[in-house]
């Protein structure tokens, strides 16, 4: 790789890194709640991220059991009892941290047992905890590669037309602004 190409790549890399770098604006509790009401669960489906902590609140005045078979082997790895609604403590809550080591991307069912029977199922879609920050469109290079000569003619024509149009638009705008200033 020659120097100019290396510089080009480094420039592209630098810009790309700048663009994908998470800004310091990010914040959030990284928790996601489900409300187990008397009759319904809110929400019934959700998209969550690895590393999120799920909190299931029981607002009914009786126990509920929350079960999850993480690896689909027929045995529930997560088994939590949420007691009757209690606004001064956490006995009515179930916490589940989506440890990336145990939770891969995909769909999971959270089964809720009430009065000994299956009462409701929440479907969650776990997504990888990766940033999808702003990126250039596919194929775009910030510092253009050397052009292919076979397209140079037509591209040059279009480029010239674009520049001319841009120039004309700018002149028109300046002219209007000057006219506007004069009128003021």
């Amino acid at each position, binding site marked *: 790789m020659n120097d100019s190409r290396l510089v080009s790549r480094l420039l592209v890399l630098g810009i790309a890194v*700048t663009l994908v770098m998470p*800004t310091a604006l*990010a*914040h959030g509790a990284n928790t996601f*709640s489900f409300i187990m009401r008397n009759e319904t669960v*809110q929400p019934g489906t959700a998209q969550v991220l690895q590393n999120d902590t799920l909190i299931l609140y029981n607002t009914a005045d009786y126990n509920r059991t929350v079960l999850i078979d993480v690896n689909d082997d027929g045995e529930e790895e997560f088994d939590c009892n949420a007691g009757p609604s209690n606004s*001064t403590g956490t006995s009515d809550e179930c916490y589940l941290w989506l440890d990336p080591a145990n939770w891969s991307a995909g769909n999971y069912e959270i089964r809720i047992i009430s009065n000994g029977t299956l009462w409701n199922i929440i479907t969650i879609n776990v997504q990888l905890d990766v940033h999808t920050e702003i990126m250039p469109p596919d194929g775009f290079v910030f510092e253009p590669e050397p052009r292919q000569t076979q397209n140079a003619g*037509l591209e040059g024509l279009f480029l010239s037309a674009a520049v001319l*149009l841009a120039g004309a638009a700018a002149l028109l705008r300046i002219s209007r602004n000057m006219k506007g200033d004069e009128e003021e």
Partner: protein
Amino acid sequence: MFSGANAKMMLMVALMALAPLSGCLSILGDGDSDDDGYKWIDPVIEVEDANHSHNDLLAHRLSTPNARLIDYHNLNCDGNVKPPAEFDDTMGRPCKEEYKNVGPTPGDNSEIAIEGNFHEDCEIHGDGSGGCFAYVSSYNQFEILDISEPNNIVLLSTYYAEVARMIDIKVTPDNNWVLVNHELTNSELDPIPNDDDANSGMNRLDVIYVGDKTSPVKVAEWNNPPAGFHNQDLHVYCDWDGAIDPREECSLFLFGADPYPEMVEGSSGTFYKGTQVFYVPLGLESWLPNQNQETQNSSREIIRWGGYTPEPYTTCGGSIFNHDNVFFIHPITKQKLLVVSYWGAGLRLVDVSDPPTVADPMGISWPPEVGRWLGCPTDESGWYGPDGGGHAGMTAEEWLDANQGNDNIHYAVPQDYLICSGVSEMDPMNTWPDKCGSGPSDSTYGENWRHYTYIAPEYGSNSNHTGYIWTIDTTDPAKPFLVSKWRLPGEGVLANGSSHPQHYIPGGYIFSPHNGDTGHNGHVYWTHYHAGAWTTDHGHIWDELVWENGYPEPDRGFQAISELAPTHTIGYYLPAGPPWLDDPAEELGYDMADCWASCMIPFDWGLQYDPRGFVWISEMVSGVYVVQFDEDYDPRYHYPALWQAEASDE
């Protein structure tokens, strides 16, 4: 016929040819021009390619013709971006006027607060009181500006702190005390600077005495591990019976938004809530810097006095996270309220009118919630039940779907005054339309005087939407209901060149709503990061609502509305350096390499509305812009842009 590259070039040519002919929206409606021949230019461009670079500053020098730059300051104090090494970092330093708008530009600006006797045009009284000032938090520092003359703003001083990161700033109405946060979030991405002054400041609230505007000095600090506060507000109560010291005539309370209230502290068995209220014994007077150390130490005590977090059953699930608390006094009920943004739990109105005389640090019963708004029903019956008026009839899944512009309520701001058909109580009575009668207490027309609270989300990325600014009728704070919603106008463009029904956020928060403020007659101002600052008109919402039965039924709220009222776009302004410079990034030394945010200009964090008709915009890299929209012009406060006159002279 054409290769991909040629097709792109054709598209570019076509776009450039069509651009002057295109139009999306305007204040005149959905038409594409006004009487002066202005063609609407949509400043939001999602796809960065050969035609557009987000880092091309000059390509973002855009505004609607009704927006005028009055003045600009790059916040250069004295030619140095940091104080001299011998300076202690708990003191500020005076600035020199000659450094205004010369390089370097320190950057990393965030929130802006303004305070003063605006309705007296910032007149300085004989006793020295009066004047108007702006305070800009800028990560490691904050700046104080004299804004008494909007067309001639002066940077008075800069306060520098080694510890980051100041992202919010508030000031007491007397312009004597500034409250800043030092918040730690994303610590691995956002490390605290290490040097001999480094300390535990990442979780602090600091009070700075600014009685002398050229010499701010820190007088008190409080720690709130692990992360401090993300935002804060304050209020001084002068009618409270619970003061610890009988000499205390007025009592200071702070309202903090704790970003990690329960998930960390909860592990120790202590469950503080997201909205935390603190009482500061002895209050502001005890902080005077001329007191001895012992007195100051005792004055630094802070007592957790109350707390609030939405009860889970009042939500539809989702991420329940307190971002911001804004204090105001409701113009009808006279309640002292916080409008609180709680992400998936929406808007919460919390009553802090009467602090208890005995602390309730766990927030078991104080402060109480008096109202809420989110898109889904949150009760079995009543106002928040499925048939009630206090939601938008969404399912939980719909409300929590950011792709539809919902969820993530990040900032809320109430009107200070009631409005009626585009006028407020602040306008002369002879300008009131007939339908406004004699005012809010009019037995026939009083109902037409409304109070609104505006809320908006924030998204890091959103593949479908930029989010709504929701207008919530809070005339009765116990029965809030939705009356209008607005998003950035125009259509988006996908990476493949196809059209998208609305703008969206490819990443980096780029076009997300952020912070806002209100004018007195229904105008609302909101920053949208790289999409600039936008002004919208909500003054005629009550007139333009379509009611199911043909007449207003606020007691039925959303259920009685068959069509929401439109929010009208007034205009936008994209700060992109002073227009009298061709290359402000070079000439003013903008830091385009080591930005806190995205190194894009504009990237507008916050703004404030000056009641004289000006908008103060804090742009994260380049500084502070004073902008006036024609619709806000008030001849009593005539401050034309001097830079234009100077340019004409030259």
